[in-house]
C-alpha cells in the first residue's frame, strides 16, 4: 500500500484496546521480539475485549483519535469463555452506526491476536496505521471543546 502524498505529515492517533490475556501479551511478545510498529499506537489494557464499552470508542473519536482497534482472543479461546463473542456483536453494530455517521469502517477494527502472535500484533498495527494514514485525519465526531 502506498501512503497518500497529501497525508505525509499527518501523524495519526490510534487507540488500541487489548485484552489482558491475549493481545496485550501479544503486544508484549512483539516488544520482546523487537517487532516494531509506529509509536502512534497507544495501548489500553482491558481484562477482556467484552469490557470495551462503545462509549470508550465514541469518546476516543470525540477527543481526536483517528482510528480505534480492539484486539481480543481468537473465537473459542476467550479467557472468560464467551467475552469476545459479545465484543464481536457489539462492535459490528457500533461500527455500522459509526460508518453511517461518517467514520469510515477502515477506522475501526476488531482483531483476534493471541498471546503467541507477537508478529501478528506488529503486522496488524503497521497495516492499520497505514490504512489510517491513507484515510487522513478524522474530523467526524471530534469535539473541539475538548481541545485545550
Amino acid at each position, binding site marked *: 500500500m502506498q501512503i497518500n502524498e497529501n497525508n505525509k505529515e499527518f501523524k495519526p492517533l490510534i487507540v488500541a484496546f487489548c485484552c489482558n*490475556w491475549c493481545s496485550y501479551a501479544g503486544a*508484549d511478545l512483539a516488544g520482546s521480539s523487537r517487532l516494531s510498529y509506529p*509509536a502512534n499506537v497507544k495501548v*489500553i489494557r482491558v481484562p477482556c475485549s467484552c469490557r470495551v464499552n462503545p462509549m*470508550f470508542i465514541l*469518546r476516543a473519536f470525540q477527543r481526536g*483519535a483517528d482510528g480505534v482497534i480492539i484486539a481480543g482472543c481468537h473465537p473459542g479461546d476467550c479467557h472468560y469463555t464467551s467475552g469476545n463473542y459479545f465484543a464481536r456483536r457489539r462492535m459490528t453494530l457500533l461500527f455500522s452506526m459509526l460508518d453511517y455517521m461518517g467514520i469510515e469502517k477502515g477506522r475501526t477494527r476488531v482483531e483476534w491476536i493471541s498471546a503467541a502472535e507477537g508478529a501478528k500484533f506488529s503486522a496488524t498495527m503497521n497495516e492499520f496505521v497505514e490504512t489510517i494514514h491513507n484515510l487522513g485525519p478524522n474530523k467526524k465526531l471530534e469535539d473541539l471543546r475538548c481541545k485545550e
Partner: protein
Amino acid sequence: MQKIGVFVCWCGSNIAGTVDVERVAQAVANEPGVVISTDYQYMCSEAGQLKIRQAIKEYGLTGIVVCSCSPRMHEATFRKTAQAAGLNPYMVEIANIREQCSWIHKDKDEGTEKAIILAKAAIAKLHLNTPLKAGESAVTKRALVIGGGIAGIQTALDIADAGYEVDIVEKSPTIGGKMAQLDKTFPTLDCAACILTPKMVDASAHEKINLFTYSEVEGVSGFVGNFKVKIRKKARHVKADLCTGCGVCTEKCPSRKAPNEFNQGLNKRGAIYIPFAQAIPNVPVIDTEYCVKMKTGKCGLCATVCPSKAIDFEQQDEIVEREYGAIVAATGYKLINLDNFEEFGYAQNKDVITSLELERLMNAAGPTKGTLLRPSDNEHPHEIVFIQCVGSRDVSGCGKPYCSKICCMYTAKHAMMIRDKYPDTKVHVFYIDVRTPGKNFDEFYRRAVEEYGVDYIKGMVGKVVEKDGKLLVQGSDLIANEQIKIEADLVVLATAIEPDPSVKNLATMLTASIDTNNFLTEAHAKLRPVESPTAGVFLSGVCQGPKDVPETVAQASAAAAKVIGLLAKDKLTCNPCVANSNELLCNGCSQCANVCPYGAIEYINKEVNDHGKREVRRIALVNEAVCQGCGACTVTCPSGAMDLKGFTTRQIMAEVDAICK
C-alpha cells in the same frame, strides 16, 4: 486529590536506550496530584524498591505509577512493594514503556513522547483508583492430570507422593502413552518398558491416584482452586469390577480385522482387545466398529467364554463430575500426517516406514517379536536408509517450521541398534544437521558413527521409488557435492511430531492458549515454563513443545511441584477486580446475569434509600468469590449500574482522555 509518586525505570539501557527517562520524569512532575517524580536504573531491584517505599512514607503517597516493563512482568512485584510500605496494593499502576514503547521504537524523541503519554494515562487512571481488598476462596485439594503418558504419570506420582489426591484421565484404554511403544531409550539404551511399566504399576497402585482410562474431559468450569470437570467414561463393554484380565475373550474373538494401534497398524487385533500385555488397567475393551455382535447382533463369543461374566454389550458411557484445585495438561503428541510428502512414497510402499513403526518392528513384543523384518515380504533388510527432518524445520508449509528435537537422537539409537544386532546391514542416514544438545548425547551420536560405522550423509533425499522389489533412494551429498542413489530394502522416515489433536478442544475448555503450532503456551517462556497463563492450569510434557523422555520427566516433576504449592494452600487470594452493582442505578432487568459466563450474579429484593425515598427494589448482587472480572456485564447494563473494580468505566475513560489529548 491523590498524592501520586511516579517512578520511571531505566531498565538498564532497555528503556533508557530509546526513551529519555529523565525527560519523562520531568514531563509528568507537574501533572495534577504528582508530588514526586523520579527515575532510577532498576526499579525492580532491592534498591529501586527501597526508593519507592521511602517515597511512599516520606511524601505520604496515596498511589504510585511505575513506568517500567509490562505489568504482566512486574505488577505483582510493585504491588508487594507498595503493600510493604503500607499502601493498598491496588493503588499501583504500571505504564508499560518497555515492551510497548522502548523495545519497538527506534527514534528517541518518538519513544519519549509516547512514554510520557503512557505515563500520563496511568496517572489519570490512578486518580480514580480506590483501595481494593482481595477476598479468599477455598482450595479443593485434588488435582486432575489429563493424559496418562510418561508426563502425566510422573506428574501424578509426584503430586500423590506429596499427599494429595490425583485423578488421571486418559483417552485410550491404558496408561503408558507413546513411551510404552518405544523399544529402547537414548542415550543409555534402557529398555523403555522396563523403566516405564514400574511407574505405571506405581500409579495404579497408589492409594491417592485414581485412574480414568478410556475417558475424556468433556467440560471444565470454575477457576483456580475450584474447577468443576465433567469426565466421560466411555463404555468399554466390559465390567471392570468383574473382569480378571485372563484374556480368554481377546484370544477367542473371531474378528481380526482391526489395525493394532499399539503396533502402529503393522498387524491386526481382535475386536475385543487389551492394547498390550502390561496395559493398566488390564481390562479389555470392545471396539464397537469391528465387533460382529455390536454390528449384527450375531456372535457374542467373548461373553460365552468369559469365566467371570464381565462382558456387557449394553454398557453406556458414563458422565462423572469431579472437583479439582488444579489441572495439568499432559496430552502429548502424535506423528504428523505424511500426505504432503509424496516424494518419500510412504503411502505406496510398505517398506517406507516411520520411526515409531521401526520402534515396534524392533520390539520383542511387536509384530515381528523383535526380529527386524521388512513389512512387505518379511525378509531381513540388508540396506537401510534413514531420512531426517521429514516435516520438521520445514517452512514450505508442507510440514512444521520447528525442530522436533527427538529425531536426531532416536535415529542414532536405531542405527546403532541395527548395526549391533545385524552387523551385515548397511545403514545410511540423510541429515540436514545433527543436533545433539543434551547430557551424553553427542557422545552417543559419535559412537554411532565411530564405533558402529553408520554412514551419515549430509543432504536431503529428493525421491524414493520402488524398483525391482527394492527402494531406490535418490538424494544429494552436500559435502561431496554429488547426487547419490542407494538401493535400500527399508526406508525409515524421522517424521515430525505435533501436539495431539485433542489439545485444541482442551485449550478451549481450559481457556489456556495455544500457539500457531498448537502447542500450549506457557505463562512465561523462561520464568514460568510449566504454568499456563490461566491460573491453576499447568503444562507437562510435549503438549508444551517437543521434548525427549528425560526433559518430559523433568517438566512433569516441575509441574507437580507447582501443583503441590497450590494445593498446599488452604485459601487462595481472589482477584479483587470484580464487578459490583450500584444499587441506586440498578433496575433489576437481569441483562447482566444473562451475559455472565460464571453465573456470578443473583437478584435480591433490598430496601434502598434513594435520596430519602425508601423502597424495596429488585437489584443485582455480584458474588465476589465467583466473579472473575471479565466485565461483560458492565457493558451490557443499560442503566450503567454495573462497574468493574480496577477497570471502572471512569478509569478507562480517563485513560482514553489522557491518550487523546
